[in-house]
Structures are given as C-alpha cells and as structure tokens.
C-alpha cells in the first residue's frame, strides 16, 4: 500500500456514528436491544416478522381447540388444553417482543382482525380427524421448531429470548403429536388409514411453512444480512425433510411424495416439486379455512371487549380509592 491517502468519494456513503455502532454489533454477532439505535428497515422488518409470528401462534390455537371436547380420553384432553394454552403463551411472548419495538398490541390485533396482517398459511387448513392432532404436532410443530431453533440466535435480543422459551415448550408439542400417530399406527386398519390420510394432507403444507424458495423470497437476503434469519428457506426445508424420513419409517407412514429419493452425492433427501400456486392462494386468503379463522378471532376479540373494559374500570377505581386514602392519611 502507498502512504498517500486519497479520500474515496466514489462509492461509499458516509454513515452516522449510531449506524456504525449498529453495524459493528451485528458484525460481532452481538445483540441489538430495544433502546439501541437501529435502521428503520430493521425495525420494520422485525415488527412484521414478530407480529406475524405472534398472530400465527394465536390463530394456531383454533385448529386444535376444535378437538379439545372430542379428544379420546381425559388425559388427551388435558394434554391438548396444555398445548393450546402454550400457543396462547407463545403469542403473548411474541407480542411483547414486538412491543419493545414501538408496535402496540391494539394496532397488531386490529391489523389481524381486519385481515391486513399475515399469519402462517398452515393454520388455514381444516382438522377433520383426531389424527390431525398427531400430524399437527409431528409435522407442523416439527417444521416450526426447525425454523425457530436458529431464531433463538436472532440479532434482536427480545426476539431471541422469546424464541428460547418457545422452543423449550415446542418440543413437548412435537413429541405428543408423534405419539398420537404412533398409537394410531399400532391400532386397527381403520386407525392406520386415518393416520396416513392425515399425513398425506399435512405433509406438503408443512413443507410450505418454510416460505417460498430462495430465489423467490424477497426479504430473505436482507434478513440474513441483519442476522435475524440464520439459514435460507430451502436449507431449513431440506434439513426438515432429512429428519422426517427416518421418523416416518419409525411410524410406518408413507410421505406423499413419489419423487422423494436419497441423493448419494449430496447425502440428502431430494424432494419433488412443491405446488407453490396452492401456497400463494392460501396466503392470499383463499385457503380452506381463512375466513372462518379470522371470523372466530374477530368474534373472540369483540366478545371480550367488555371484560377488558370492566377490568380497566375496576383498576382505575381501586387506584383512585388508594390515592384518596393516602391523601387523607397524609
């Protein structure tokens, strides 16, 4: 290198001290915390991702709550209730994380019930049989875990911390689903058919949960540069299928992909073509249960309005009472 310093004004744009600090933290694989400076795009991207994730947990309670009253035993009912309660908890952890970015709970809820916010397309599929509780646990929660484990290291602190709690709890969800299917597969011919039919219906939608293929995923590159995402959609999907194949063998179910085969070169399972038209249709609101899911969420919100108001009114009254008492005492 020569010792002459020529300022290069051609390409580099001067960035602020704050932005440099932000970039350094990301570069060092450290974490960004709520009151740190962050680029507007980073904030927006996180609010979008975290709130969509929260909505998915909340809407995700519906396909399963559908089976609480009809679960085949008291133990199964208790397990399903615990699982649905977990989903509510996951939604709340995530809404809290989004709120640290300046989003409000009311705005997020309004966007959801107005049909403006997205949530995972998987929850727009129906759950007609008990075996679907098994498939949701094994395939849907399994895909979710695969997606979420790397998110525990997301560059935004509150999101990563929420994901740590969620991942701990999800592993119970996946195992209980697997067990439901295992029991059905050890049952009568009819039960085995029910399990296989359910796996046939959930397999492809579960693979779509990882999002569009990498060359059609507009937000992915930036998200990975910011270390919110750690792996590409296709990489995670591949990792998931590699795990599923031996698990399906244990269950004795067939994965409904005639093109699925082991690639000796890559040592991975190559999968057949995914029907992305279906994915985009469901995402656009034209899935089997979109309208029903949103309507139910809207009803629950509206029917709970008086409870929220009454509790706030009671709190105000109590607060006023203690303040008056304290003033009288002083």
């Amino acid at each position, binding site marked *: 290198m020569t010792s002459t310093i020529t300022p290069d004004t051609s390409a580099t744009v001067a960035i602020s001290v704050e932005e440099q600090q932000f970039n350094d933290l990301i570069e060092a694989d450290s974490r960004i915390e709520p009151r740190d400076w962050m680029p507007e795009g980073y904030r927006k991207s996180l609010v979008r991702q975290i709130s969509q994730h929260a909505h998915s947990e909340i809407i995700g309670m519906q396909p399963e709550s559908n089976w609480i009253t009809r679960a085949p035993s008291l133990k199964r009912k208790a397990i399903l209730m615990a699982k649905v309660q977990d989903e509510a*908890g996951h939604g709340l952890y995530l809404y809290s994380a989004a709120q640290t970015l300046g989003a409000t709970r009311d705005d997020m809820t309004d966007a959801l019930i107005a049909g403006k916010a997205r949530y995972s397309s998987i929850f727009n599929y129906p759950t007609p049989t008990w075996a679907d509780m098994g498939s949701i646990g094994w395939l849907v929660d399994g895909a979710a875990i695969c997606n979420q484990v790397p998110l525990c290291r997301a560059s935004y602190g509150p999101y990563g911390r929420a994901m740590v709690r969620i991942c701990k709890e999800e592993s119970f969800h996946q195992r209980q689903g697997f067990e439901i299917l295992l029991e059905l597969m050890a049952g009568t011919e009819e039960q085995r058919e029910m399990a296989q039919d359910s796996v046939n219906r959930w397999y492809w939608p579960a693979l779509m949960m990882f999002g569009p293929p990498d060359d059609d995923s507009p937000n992915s590159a930036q998200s990975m540069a910011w270390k919110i995402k750690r792996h590409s959609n296709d990489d995670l999907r591949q990792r998931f299928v590699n795990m599923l194949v031996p698990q399906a063998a244990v269950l004795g179910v067939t994965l409904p992909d005639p093109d699925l085969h082991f690639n000796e070169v890559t040592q991975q399972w190559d999968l057949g073509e995914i029907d992305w038209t279906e994915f985009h249709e469901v995402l656009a609101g034209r899935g089997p249960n979109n309208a029903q899911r949103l309507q139910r969420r809207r009803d629950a919100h509206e029917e709970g309005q008086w409870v929220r108001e009454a509790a706030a009114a009671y*709190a*105000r009254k109590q607060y006023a009472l203690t303040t008056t008492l304290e003033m009288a005492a002083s």
Partner: protein
Amino acid sequence: MTTPGDSAAEIWPLWEVFVRSNRGLSHVHVGSLHAPDETLAVRNARDLYTRRSEGVSVWVVPAAAITTSDPDAKGAFFESPAGKNYRHASYYSKSEGVKHL
C-alpha cells in the same frame, strides 16, 4: 383518571415480570405482560411464565416505574471501570503458584 402506566394505545398497562426459580437465587427478568392491576398482573405472570414449575416467587413491576440509564450515553456512563483491572483478582499475577490465594 387512569391506572398508572396505561396509554391511549393500550387499555391495560405493561408490567415487567421477574421470577425466582428457586430459593437462594435472585429474581430474574423473564418478560412482560399487560394487566389492569397488580393482582391480575401477578396471576397472569404465573399463568404465562411458570406453567412448568419455573418459579417459586414472582415480582411484577409497572414498566413505567423503571428508570434506566441513558442508552445514548452508554460509552461514557460505563467508562469508569475501564483501565481499572486491578479490581480483578487476575491482575495480581506474582502470587501465581502459591496455594490458597
């Protein structure tokens, strides 16, 4: 008249939750939640953060009651310990090899 910490955007104020996982350990911040008052905040915190025996005690604090250091001044504010490594035992290396020191 409002409850402390509520706002036009949220009908219920925000509470920060701290859980003591076992006797002998400190309460540690685990997250936050909304609740109309302290009684319900404690109950909601139990339901939300201790479903798997994660705690033996819960604190809730109105988020608005917490005062934090200025995030923009963090460099200067936490500068004082820098260059004072004599505050650490590892600074004193001459006693290396001497037992029970």
